[in-house]
């Protein structure tokens, strides 16, 4: 059994949800699965207009990933203060990535791991202001949450790992 089969089982159990493009028929060279909490925020209902607009924008940021847009990643992994779309938060975390949804405020980070190249599983989301400086305790907490979630869902599989950063994780990535 492959990890793709495992993911499908988790989807049948509704412990994961596969995100699809809104306009059917367009190619989906990448895939994202999300935890139920993130799925609920993507679909609504939302508490207020601000939350609705924040997650409306995140929907399209994730769609951009799925439809194969160029994804910018940093050259140096510890360069936290720059503009890019995704980052492997190594060395503090084992194979945990963040997808950044920066603007408008409040900035949001979505944390997850790759099951395979171009196959991202998003487990958690954090408002950026709660994370503090890069390397602070909250970053480690987010990382530990992801690894724990991974172990709960896929106990017999390791996350995707590659020496070829970033193309070993995301095809069509651009180092900025």
């Amino acid at each position, binding site marked *: 059994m492959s990890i793709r089969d495992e993911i499908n089982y988790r*989807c*049948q159990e*509704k412990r*994961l*949800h*596969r*995100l*699809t*493009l*809104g*306009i*059917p*028929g*367009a190619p989906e060279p990448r895939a994202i699965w*999300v935890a139920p909490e993130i*799925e609920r925020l*993507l*679909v*609504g209902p*939302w508490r207020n*207009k601000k939350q*609705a*607009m*924040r*997650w*409306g*924008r995140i*929907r*399209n*940021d*994730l*769609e*951009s990933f*799925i439809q194969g*847009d*160029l994804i*910018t990643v940093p050259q140096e992994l510890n360069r936290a203060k*720059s*503009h*890019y*779309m995704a980052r492997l938060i190594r060395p503090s975390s084992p194979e945990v990535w963040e997808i*950044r949804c*920066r*603007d408008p405020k409040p900035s949001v980070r979505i944390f997850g791991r790759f099951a395979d190249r171009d196959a991202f599983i998003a487990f958690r989301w954090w408002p950026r202001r709660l994370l503090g400086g890069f390397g602070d305790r909250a970053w480690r907490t987010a990382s530990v949450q992801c690894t724990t979630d991974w172990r709960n869902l896929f106990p017999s599989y390791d996350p995707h790992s590659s020496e070829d950063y970033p193309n070993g994780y995301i095809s069509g990535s*651009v180092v*900025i």
Partner: protein
Amino acid sequence: MATSLAPSLSEIAEGAPIPAATLAYFQERLRNRLHQLVLREFVRQEGANGLTKAALALRLGKRPEQITRWLGAPGNWTLDTVSDLLLGMGLEPTFGMKNVIEARAVSSAAEAAPLPQTFTQVQNIQPMVPDEVHVIGYGFRPRPATRPGAGTVTDLLRRQPPAPARAA
């Protein structure tokens, strides 16, 4: 279980007030598409002509870090940013629009249609886009070096009539 990322478009079809999440989704969609347009062109010119962020920064009178920030993510872009970046690469955008309701309907129909199995079926395929749907994507065209009929500054200077010779 699959979850579609696109919001419901029923309000748009009915002429009802559009929900905040739908507005935000399409705002971000436009921003991301413009970013992709510029980023793809930069990557293309980087490979083809050796364009660098430093060279682009020099052309635009900006610091290279600013170009890195702009290309990295579209967060703080304005319309002026798009214009500057494209012009720095010798381009300007061209425009078009499409009806989102009809575009989605056409895409859905295309997905629902069975794939042709035989050569005859392939020959009989009709275009899925009805004539009245005006679909034009985003694009850009190279900015002409000069307007038609005009020349470069050097040409214009050359065309100046010679100054009359002064009488001795």
